């Protein structure tokens, strides 16, 4: 799989995929997209990069264990639900604050952080599995 063309194109492709995954994640509340699909795209990016440059490189680039990313995601989602305690409303109640910046509205909400948590959970888990599988291939 490590052809010159693939190895040259892969970093560019991966960068685009990661940016796109974030785009898909953030627009998800109003347009097709969301944390789950964004996480899948990002995980494919990681898997692709692993095939192109080897698992060692990817692990170095990620800096943290992929499963830790997944754990962070689940934690973030749970915490976004716990914010509601401060407002004395049930667990996971959606809370919204809308900022006005120039002429645009920027909404910050607990469902958004929840969705970001989903993104990381999916990304981390699938990336961990894909990398572990690729690792074995490297050893052969």
């Amino acid at each position, binding site marked *: 799989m490590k052809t010159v063309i693939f190895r040259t194109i892969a970093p560019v492709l991966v960068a685009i995929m990661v940016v796109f995954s974030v785009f*898909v994640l953030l627009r*998800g*509340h*109003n*347009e*097709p*997209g*969301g*944390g*789950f*699909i964004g996480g*899948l*795209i990002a*995980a*494919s990016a990681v*898997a692709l990069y692993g*095939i192109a440059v080897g*698992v*060692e490189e990817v*692990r170095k680039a990620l800096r943290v*264990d992929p*499963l830790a990313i*997944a*754990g962070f*995601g*689940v934690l973030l*989602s*749970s915490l976004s*639900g716990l914010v509601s305690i401060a407002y004395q409303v049930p*667990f*996971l109640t*959606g809370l*919204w604050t809308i900022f006005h910046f120039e002429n645009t509205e920027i*909404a910050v*909400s607990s*469902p*958004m952080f*929840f*969705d970001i*948590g*989903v993104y990381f*959970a*999916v990304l*981390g*888990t*699938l990336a*961990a*599995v*894909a990398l*572990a*599988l*690729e*690792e*074995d*291939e490297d*050893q*052969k």
Partner: protein
Amino acid sequence: MLSDLDISICLIAIAPFIAAIFAPVVQRFCAGMTGWVLSVVPLSIFVFLTSFIPEIAGGGFVYAGFDWVASYGLRFSFFIDGLSLTFGLLISGIGTFIVLYSGAYLEGHHHQGRFFAFILMFMGSMLGLVFADNMITLFAFWELTSITSFLLIGFDNVREASRRAAIQALVITGGGGLAMLAGLIMLQQLSGQWNISGLFQYAGVIAEQELYLPILLLILAGAFTKSAQFPFHFWLPNAMEAPTPVSAFLHSATMVKAGVYLLARFNPILGGTVEWGVILSIFGGVTLLWGATMALKQTDLKQMLAQTTVASLGLLVMLLGIGNEAAIIAVVLYLVAHACYKGAMFMVAGSVDHATGTREITALGGLGRIMPFTLAAAIIGVAGMAGAPLTVAFFAKEEMYAALLHDGLSGLLAQPQDLLAIAVILVGNALMMGVGLAILIKVFFGTLKPTPVQPHEGSLSLWAGALVLGVLAVFTGVAIGWTEQYLITPVASPIHNLLVNGQLYLDLTLFTKPQFYVSVLTWVLGVVVFWQIDEIRTRLRAFSRVLNWSFDALFDWLMFGLVRLSDALTRFWHHGRLELYLLVVFVGFAAAVIIPLVWENALPPMPELTALPFYEWSILLIAAIGLVAVLIARTRLVAIVSLGIQGFAVALIFLLFGAPDLSFTQFMVETLSVIILALVMTRLHLDQRDSRIFQDVFRDGGLAVICGVGVTVLMLAVLQNPLDMRLSDLFAATSVPLAHGHNIVNVILVDYRGLDTLGEISVVMTAGIAILALIRIRGGGPQTGAGAKKPDSRGNRTEKAA
């Protein structure tokens, strides 16, 4: 809204947990002083609780708490009355000394911080349990005491005996707790009340219900397992594997009393019936005699004390079963007396062990001169065990005899069951007194014997607690006016559900009471037991050698059988042949889809085919090409990729019919599954080609067709009915105004059904961990990633070598 009082009362149960989090940190900075620092927590709880004494002694109640799951009417709620306040004071008061004692007893232990954390958590659970008003709150704390007790018994986790004792205690008390939960829920279903304080108004009514007996039995199962009643008694002596402070705290003064507390708490609600009286008296009585006899058999100080604890718990349960006013007063007095003297005796035993390095009574002697303070504590403790005058235990004994002598001696002779009960109590008390005397005299008097460690008096924190508890036992036994006002009336009244006025006598009228002479008889018998203890022990041991059977062994046999059964089941289902797994799954699936359709005669008619535009035809064609390609593919890799073609075609269909989110996800899932399948295939070192014999092709192909047809028919059948659009309409109407989102799919995922999604991502991550574990086991260990272990099974090594 929460008031300050609500918060501070909830903190009684929660503060120890918070302290537990910081205990290891405190340990790191304070080292030897940790016990003194951390004892501030229980001490302040104790002081706070004393502020309630005037109100509660005046017959008042305090309620507190906040809504927990309001939609089910569940509150995280507490209430304080005489019974719970006494328990709370005992727990926090003894807890203070236990924390101090642990500081000295485990000094230098490398996990001392962890130990403090466990013991504080236990204290919080116990406080929560006794103050809980809501039954679910009660249950939560009840199970927390089981779990923390498990941690404490297994504290010395390198020893197999500790681990076994810990698991045994958890299985028995946890199992009983689950039975209790069922009982509590039934009680709620019957009365509509989650609060114990709200149940009091149904006193007498519940006993007339049909469900009374099941409720009673289930709740008794919880209480009996927790309080080590026969035949669940055996976990308690085994729990002595725990460090001595734990035994003193959990297994004498507090946790094992939780069952007694529960019975006392529910006495007004469930008590007073024939069933209650008979069951409690019989089980309590058997436990009393059993424990007292077993205590004689032991030579280990802690084991002797543990068995007498079993006996004392039996006595308490029996008294609750008798249930008249004098018996309830006896319960109250004996509770306090036992908590004081047994806690003290355990601390004495621990100090002796600490000072000499042994707990064998035959190897000890003459320590009184070397350990004067410990001796003083032991004398008061044994005085309590014997029920000597001037201690509160004396009155406890007087009252328990009075409970059965209410009609005088002639009345007793006319009631055979009362006569039997009084005989059981008398013998039990005498045996326990004999054991107490043996501990005191053989250990502290006589000639000094050589011990593994040069004996020395322990530090202040080792003997102070035992001494203070002893002094308390004497104080309550002398200041009887105080005891009547602050102990008997406020504590016994809620148990009895009537105002109880205790009347104790410490003057010449004592000699006019028949129960005094029964006490004298107890003492005489106790001295005889002590005098003959070696002889009795030899005989008991010979007898148990002949019997060669114990409940302990039965438990092991049951547990072992359970493990073997699950092992056999696992082997049966997990034979390791993947194609059979898949076969079972798909046959089950086909049966689940097709059989109900045929059974219910719900097979749909053939649908009318509408004319499709050319692009829809072309997508179907792509899907079909994909399928054909899978079937004729020459290598597995080609087959996997071809399957992807079919998946993409399905994604296109989703796109065409207005489900962009679904289609989007389908695209990604297809891509990733192709990648992962390809990677798995290379990992499994499969052949390039998938060659099957004809029978297999026939079987697998046939099954695939059946499954496909089944799903198709099911979909058509579903379409026969008009779609229920209520939910969709609701979501469509509310998604923007309520959830600020235009993408309904996403809004459902992250908002309307957020809890489901949270569960799903947890499952995703858990599955990921499991997959990683499987990969690493097979792959001969990872090169990166923490926490993975090298494989040690022989199969993997040989595979590698080959």
